[in-house]
């Protein structure tokens, strides 16, 4: 019988790309360095090689200047931890012209590797089209905050669930969407069924929910090739669900470093 310390070696002996993490601003609006240091320290201890981070505005409808300011903080974190923190560019699609310009800046000037969207619009909303088209043009993935709540979330009325992803994926088959935190977004059975038939929708396993069978059900529905490792502030839960699920060692390793996503990561690494 394998000891638990032996079980944990999968994180140390393989490349681990954590596709869903965040850095945050402090009360003064600067990079919260203490939290970022703790994040990176924890990642090193746990055996994560790369942290893909963003800094979204989680409530309200932020102006472009605020998105830009937050992206600059992510860039500061990327420079503080070169090779460990990779950045995702957060934009508010409601400001379409400014959002497209900001994506250009973040990808081409700051070396970020994808776009992060939050709950300002459903992913299927026409307001998001310009952003999706820009991501197709630049060949970058879109990581969208997601969840299906019963009843509907009052404080996040436009949070996307699997059905919104399916509509966007149908309209934009060339785009690559990442459904965020299957372990933090409510009724995951709902969203897995909705996205199952769309090969351009991937998902990350982050989130504090570690219901027994969540990972097996995810792989049964969408296949291991579309599943990515992530934590979103919940290292233990995310590590535990990967360790505890009944997948083969090879499948777990495939999730820890999703091969399809490698090319995006490589672009970011060239910057370092």
């Amino acid at each position, binding site marked *: 019988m394998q000891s638990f310390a032996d079980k944990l070696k999968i994180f140390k002996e393989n490349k681990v790309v954590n596709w869903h993490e965040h850095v945050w601003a402090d009360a003064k609006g600067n990079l919260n360095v203490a939290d970022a240091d703790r994040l990176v320290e*924890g990642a090193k201890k746990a055996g994560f090689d790369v942290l893909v981070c963003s800094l979204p505005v989680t409530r309200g409808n932020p102006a472009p200047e605020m998105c830009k300011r937050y992206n600059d903080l992510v860039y500061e974190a990327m420079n503080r931890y070169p090779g460990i923190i990779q950045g995702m560019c957060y934009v508010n699609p409601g400001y379409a012209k400014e959002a497209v310009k900001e994506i250009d800046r973040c990808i081409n000037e700051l070396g970020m590797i994808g776009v992060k969207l939050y709950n300002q619009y459903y992913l299927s909303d026409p307001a998001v089209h310009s952003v999706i088209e820009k991501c197709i043009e630049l060949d970058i993935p879109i990581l969208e905050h997601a969840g299906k709540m019963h009843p509907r979330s009052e404080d996040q009325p436009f949070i996307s669930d699997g059905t919104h992803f399916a509509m966007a994926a149908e309209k934009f088959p060339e785009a690559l969407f990442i459904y965020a935190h299957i372990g933090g977004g409510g009724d995951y059975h709902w969203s897995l069924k909705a996205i199952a038939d769309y090969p351009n929708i991937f998902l990350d396993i982050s989130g504090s929910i570690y*219901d*027994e*069978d969540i990972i097996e059900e995810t792989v049964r529905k969408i296949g291991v090739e579309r599943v990515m490792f992530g934590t979103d502030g919940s290292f233990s839960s995310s*590590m535990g669900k990967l360790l505890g699920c009944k997948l083969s060692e090879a499948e777990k390793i495939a999730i820890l470093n999703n091969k399809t996503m490698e090319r995006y990561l490589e672009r970011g690494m060239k910057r370092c």
Partner: protein
Amino acid sequence: MLIDMCGYLGHWPFRKINNNDVESFVKVMDDYKINLSVVSSLNAVFYKDTMQGNEEIAEEIKPYSDRLVAFCVINPAYPAWEKDFRTCIEKLGMKGLMMYPYYHPYRLTEANAIRLANLAGEAGIPVHIPVSIINVRQRHWLDTTEILNTSDFIALIKNAPNTDFIVSNGATDAIAAAAKDADSKRKGKVYYDFQRVEVFLPSFERLLATVGPEQIVLGTGNPLQYLDTQFVKLHYMDVSDEVKDLITYKNAARLLKLA
């Protein structure tokens, strides 16, 4: 030595559950080297008469009396609850009580709930109140939207001063902080698990700093959740071996009055 203070047997109505029969449950315990688990009946939560679930589980665990300890589920808003409680403790040999104020129609501030908690104290058994059975975000549309109300819980511990309580599967660091003052004035104590408290963030440190190592126990939520998450935390928590022993079995053994 490992004692798991939070396990369940039976059916969960809102999604398929694996390893929820007694043989499979014990097999999982073996896989994770868990010596003893506290179990209670999920069926009892949803049956109108909780006793039907209590009687089922008492019978089921008989062949595993060295591995499993049962807690009873009592709804103090249902007729004959006091008789049922006594039957569970005195005849069925149950070693603790589960209360679910968010599934059963009562509040912890009501007289019957307070009386039930005091009866548990008099019987020398702990009262376990999970913050929720599953995280409320994952809920089925027919499931409850409520979780343990912290204010009601604090009122209850004040009203049942000699009773030991266990709070599991929630933001126990925050609940412990809120209940600290009330708990410090009691003879009984509140114990907390860390199912939803992260060791890579300050939340576990906060829980430990608030209540100390003698009021923390291991709970896994088996079979509703992967057990590995708690083992990741045990591996990475920055505590001495002595403290880890308290958390993983010594506190639980004391609560369960094991020799």
